[in-house]
């Protein structure tokens, strides 16, 4: 019997999230919930996701009602053993609410913020999240895909950072990094990540790459094998399967939110996940000086036609263990026949996810990635 009272709080999904709307509770007050159970749907202005129970036990109180809009960190409910009496729980809630209101009034929402580093001729922006009180396992570097940025890992970086230092970077031409891209091909992008590792003095890392970032990770493991402890690809390019040219041309051509929607809906199995804010962010990114030229150059040099990297023949040469994750409903890159992959690649399919499998199947993906990385630590 434990007398511990565990608060369930509004999570922070990504740097920009300040508040969340409570959509649907999947559990009722009094239910016994297990750690990892999906308990409540929450929507930020960017995206909707389901929150997992942080602990096991009876859900003694639900504090947040459906439809409420609450700041990050606000109390949603509490988990506590039956032995804890109601008065103690009420006192805990009252105390939490008072402290939360006071802290919110004093601090605002100052969290970790992105940093920049000079890596060769490029300035690269990245977000570092690390465990508060210990070093953790081998650090992980998260590499987004074409047209994405470090915020694509909003559901993944914080959970992974409970176990190791994590660096989500912006590739050249993307996010807050240098927009002028002199070497837009796969080797150029790979060398940029190597320069990033050098600049931050990261001797050996785990690479987690999505889509085009997956090809960068695999290529880096071939070019600099001693720098790579393990590779995770999420709907990665480089496995010799086709990229949907409609995605690239729609994305490159879109000037308005409405046009961008056609591209963005290809990213998800459930197109309802595409929000107005997500589209607005994509359009605003494309309006920045130099971005259109950079994206066009990268698309031509690394994604379209014959320039699409096919690393199949060399995957067997990669010394680091590889975990390949795929959303089975990917409409952007064809999912390869996982049975035919070389033996050093461990594959996992998420049946109900699309190209953004790390977002659509975030909780499951985080567990699989962390378990895989722990084996390699």
């Amino acid at each position, binding site marked *: 019997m434990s007398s511990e009272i565990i608060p369930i709080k509004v999570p922070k999904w990504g740097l*920009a999230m300040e508040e969340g709307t409570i959509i649907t509770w999947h559990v009722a007050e009094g239910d016994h919930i297990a750690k990892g159970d999906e308990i409540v749907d929450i929507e930020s202005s960017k995206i909707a996701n389901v929150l997992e129970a942080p602990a096991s036990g009876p859900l003694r109180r639900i504090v947040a009602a459906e439809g409420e809009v609450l700041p990050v960190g606000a109390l949603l409910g509490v988990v506590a053993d039956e032995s804890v009496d109601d008065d103690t729980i009420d006192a805990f809630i009252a105390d939490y609410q008072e402290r939360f209101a006071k802290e919110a009034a004093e601090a605002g929402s100052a969290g970790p913020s992105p940093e920049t580093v000079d890596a060769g001729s490029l300035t690269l922006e990245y977000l570092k999240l690390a465990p508060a009180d210990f070093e953790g396992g081998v650090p992980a570097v998260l590499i987004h895909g074409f047209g994405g940025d470090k915020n694509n890992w909003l559901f993944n970086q914080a959970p992974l950072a409970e176990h190791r230092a994590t660096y989500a970077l912006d590739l050249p031409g993307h996010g807050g990094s240098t*927009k002028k891209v002199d070497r837009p091909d796969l080797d150029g992008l790979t060398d940029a990540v190597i320069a990033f590792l050098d600049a931050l003095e990261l001797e050996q890392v785990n690479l987690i790459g999505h889509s085009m970032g997956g090809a960068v990770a695999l290529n880096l493991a071939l070019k600099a094998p001693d720098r790579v402890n393990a590779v995770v690809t999420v709907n990665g390019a480089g496995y010799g399967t086709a990229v949907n040219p409609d995605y690239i041309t729609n994305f490159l051509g879109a*000037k*308005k*939110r409405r046009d961008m929607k056609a591209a963005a809906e290809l990213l998800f199995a459930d197109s309802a996940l595409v929000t*107005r804010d997500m589209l607005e962010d994509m359009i*605003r990114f494309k*309006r*920045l*000086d130099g971005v259109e030229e950079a994206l066009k150059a990268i698309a031509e040099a690394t994604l379209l036609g014959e320039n699409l990297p096919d690393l199949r023949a060399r995957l067997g040469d990669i010394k680091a263990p590889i975990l390949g994750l795929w959303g089975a409903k990917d409409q952007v890159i064809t999912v390869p026949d996982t049975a035919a992959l070389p033996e050093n690649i461990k594959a996992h399919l998420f049946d109900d996810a699309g190209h953004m499998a790390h977002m659509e199947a975030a909780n499951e993906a985080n567990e699989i990635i962390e378990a895989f990385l722990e084996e390699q630590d």
Partner: protein
Amino acid sequence: MAKKTYRQAISEALFHEMRRDERVIVMGEDVAGGQGGTGQIDAYGGVLGVTKGLIGEFGPERVIDTPITESAIMGAAAGAATQGLRPVAELMFVDFLGVCFDQIYNQAAKFRYMFGGKAVTPLVIRTMIGGGLRAAAQHSQTLYSIFTHIPGLKVVVPSNAYDAKGLLIQAIRDDDPVIFCEHKLLYDTEADVPDEAYTIPFGEAEFTREGDDVTIVAFSRMVHLANQVADKLAKDGIEVEVVDPRTTSPLDEDSIIESVENTGRLVIVDEAPPRCSMAGDIAGLVAREAFGALKAPIEAVTCPHTPVPFSPALEDLYIPSAEKIEAAVRKVMEYKP
């Protein structure tokens, strides 16, 4: 991303473009500020502090304090533009356009046409519009429709800090004369504004709210009031779409028509007087192009056809308010033929 004010956004756009292109110059009354005095150079930076800091970085050759002579400012700027510079000239209050209108509408606006496209006039005129500052009849008008009437001028009416920066950079890179209308009451409003330079194309409306019941087309500061009304009425189950055209010339007619074809109801909110105005222009457009879609007569919420009153009580009544906009929306919703 950092929150920045409308004032900062405009200032950043000027810094970006002056660094990027040495042909860009700024000229106007007190745009340097503090010049000729014994105090620090750049004490102020224009009447509302927008050009503060420019003289320090770019010097008096590119940040030119002019005499109080609008005709000279606009004439010199138009001439400089034809000779290869890219001036950003300040017409402090739009109300002063009367003393320099020839330079704008009959000179700058006509050069490209009259010289068969062989001359370009990359001129930006920054000017303040709008009431609410208790500045009386001669410093409170909203006159963008007068510029919009003139072929050869482009007219920009940013409603927020993000748009202001992207549209001003676009204006400076544009090869035609652009009238850039800043609303006095918006200078301290904030939005997320990237540190980097970016452009927003002209003639592309922004949908600041999306809805299926009523379309509100609103300009400049009126967009904020329309948004408030949309948020309030959403609670009553009325879904209001708010269209901010961002530029009155060119005008994104397609977005307006498309929205009205979906909602069937239109309210136009314009801080200008009603005659020969954007409100009348858009009502005419929709009546011509989307008549069959209309479920109710078009409503316009505008100022009355009078000068802007000096009396604060009357000025508050004069400028379109959220209450008047809400009443207009309810009226078109409740209309029965």
